[in-house]
Structure formats: C-alpha cells, structure tokens
C-alpha cells in the first residue's frame, strides 16, 4: 500500500477508536494488525517487545478504572487496554512495512509536502546515531568534571541544542551547495505512484471499521 495513504488510514483509525468505545472494533484492529505484522515478517523478538511495552500503562489504566473509579466497569477497563494495544500495533504496521525514506518520498510525491520539509527531516533523521553519540559525549564530559547531567539539567539540552544549531547550518549549506533549491520542481529517481487499488483498500478498511463500530458492541 502507498505509504502516505497507509499513514492517513492509520491516523484516521487511531482517531476514531480514541473517541468511540467498542471492544470488538479494537480487537478486530489488533487481529488484522498482527496478521499484517507477520506477513511483513516481524521478528519474534520485536513482536514480543511490542506485546510487553504497553503492558504496564494498560494494566495501570485497567486497575484504576476497575477498582478506583466510580463505575467499577470491567467493560470500560478492557476497552482501554485493547485501545492501547491497537495504537501500538497500528504504529508498528508503519514502522515495520515502511522505511522513513519511503515515507518521505511518498509524502513529497503523493501528498505534495514542500521539499524542504521532506529533505530537511530526512537529513536530520540520518543524524540520529550522531545525536545519540553527542548526548552521551556531553554526559561523559560532564562526569569528568564531576557534574551529573540528567534529563532535568538545562546544560545538557543547551549543549545538545548548540550542536544541533551548528549541524543544521552545515547540513543546509552542504545541501544547497549540491544544488538543492527550496520550492523548485524536482525530478524523482524513485517515482511512487498512487493506484486505484490503494484508494480502494483505503475505503474498504474505513467502511469495514464503520460496520464494526455500528453493529458490534
């Protein structure tokens, strides 16, 4: 499926289940997502992690609703738990089946996002390992002076942002010197098309979800 349409579909589904309380729809979404995750050959390890990660917040919500809220409703507790899992599996669908590069290309070509947003974000995403490294270096440098920098230390952010400012200058200059011009028409090395099948699938899933929400509890 086209990455932009997939993103749109997933956002619409997530929004809809946030404002409706239907257990069947949530369970249906989880089931379908799990099937797709396995179709995309998700590793057992990642799947296990995906099951485990929302567990604590989900249980906390369930406990609070069941024992500490005026309604003491098991039903609503189950809905909240299934909703959290639905979000996580839906999110995983995007990250498993699409790389940031594919999504960026599709957003540029199909959703007509201005090119500086697409390539600016992509340039930054490629800096993720360096950013992780930089935050580590700042922390270690602090420790060498006997200063413990934690997530509440302004200096940690200050130094990281200073690095980010100089990187963004350098990256932008590098891209512009290689001929990148904001807002100019571009040719695509990897054209991504939107087919009728993409829209067909999109509307089919939306309609299926509405049926599920209308006819089942």
């Amino acid at each position, binding site marked *: 499926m086209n990455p932009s349409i997939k993103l749109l579909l997933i956002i619409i589904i997530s929004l809809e289940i946030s404002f409706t309380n239907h257990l069947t729809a949530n369970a249906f979404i989880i089931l379908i997502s799990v099937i797709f995750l396995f179709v995309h050959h998700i590793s057992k390890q990642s799947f296990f992690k995906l099951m485990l990660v929302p567990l604590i*917040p989900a249980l906390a919500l369930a406990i*609070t609703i069941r024992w500490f809220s005026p309604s003491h409703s098991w039903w609503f507790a189950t809905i909240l738990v299934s909703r959290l899992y639905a979000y996580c599996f*839906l999110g995983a669908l995007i990250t498993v089946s699409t790389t940031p590069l594919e999504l960026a290309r599709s957003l540029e070509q199909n959703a007509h996002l201005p090119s500086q947003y697409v390539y600016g*974000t992509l340039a*930054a995403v490629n800096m993720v390992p360096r950013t992780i490294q930089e*935050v580590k270096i700042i922390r270690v440098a602090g420790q060498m002076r006997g200063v413990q920098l934690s997530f509440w230390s302004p200096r940690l*952010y200050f130094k990281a942002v*200073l690095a*980010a*400012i100089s990187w963004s200058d350098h990256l932008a200059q590098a891209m512009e010197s290689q001929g990148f011009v904001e807002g100019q028409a571009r040719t695509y090395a990897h054209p991504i098309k939107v087919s009728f099948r993409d829209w067909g699938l999109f509307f089919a899933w939306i309609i299926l979800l509405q049926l599920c929400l209308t006819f089942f509890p």
Partner: protein
Amino acid sequence: MQSKQHFHLRDIILLALIGIIFAVIYFGADFIYNALTVALSPIGYGPAANDITMGIWCMAGTLSGFLLRKPGAGFLGEFLAAAIETFMNGQWGAANFISGFVQGVATELGFTVTGYKIYNWLTVVTTSLFAAVITFGWDWFKNGYSHFAPAMQISLFIIRFISIFIFSGVLVKIIANLLERAHVVRKGY
C-alpha cells in the same frame, strides 16, 4: 535569521534535530513513566504517571517556539519529535502521531495568544496553560479520564499543570536564556 514567516531548510533540519535530541532523552523518561505507574497503581493513581511526565513530552515544542520565534515552530517541533520517536520505536505507536499533533497545537496556541511577539515568562504561563488544558481534554477521551472520580480528575489536572509548568515552562525558559546568553537566539523583548 532569514525571512520571518517561512521555514527554510536550515530551520526544518534544526527542528527535526531538536526532536531527535528530545526523543533520545525521552527514552529515559519512558522508564520513569513505567516506574511511576507501577508505584502509583496500588493506590489507584497509576494514570497520574502520565500527568507527572506530561511536561517532559511537551518540551520539544516549547523550546522550538522559543528558539525559532516563528508561527508554527511550536507545532512543528513537537510534531516532528513525536513522528521521529515513532520510528525510533517509542512506547506509544500510532498514538504518538496524534499525541504529538495535539501537544503541538496546544503549545502553538500558547505562542499565538502572545502574537508571536512576546517571549518571556508570560509566554511560559500561556504555553503551560494551553498545553495543560488541551492535552487533558485529549486524555479525557483517549485514556478514559472521563470515568475517574471528580476529585481525582481535579488532582490529575493540577499535577499535569505543575509538570508542564516546571518542565516545558521553567526548564525550557532556562535553556532558552542560556541560548540567548550564547547569542544564538534574540532577546525575549
């Protein structure tokens, strides 16, 4: 800085990098969130972990707003942070996109009411207020806050406001002041 209204390539890269910095530091916050949840659940205040850490999640947006001082910076900074976090395997999956959107709009409104002209402690108060009210409204539906007892709802809201005020208000303002003193941002008046 280049022309006032538009986002240029350099701004976008900077916003995305800020998003990444925060996503990297957020990873630590996920552990705190889980530990708090486990500790508070037996007394029925498990969801409070969400409110206690809320200020940390909203920091990227406020800092972007203070740093770039353009309409849309608060929103973009927060939304990009959330989107990147999704790809870095954050805890929340698709909810990240939508929470990022909601938090982004909330922070942005805090800057909008000051007309994008004032960047001082008043802005800290307006962004904190908007962020607290709007994200609480979102959790009202998404996390079932509407089902809690009224006393709990009120205390959760107060906890949330304090968290947002401390982290994405005071802490971000201190960071912005440091950046001002380093002459990478203009003065707040």
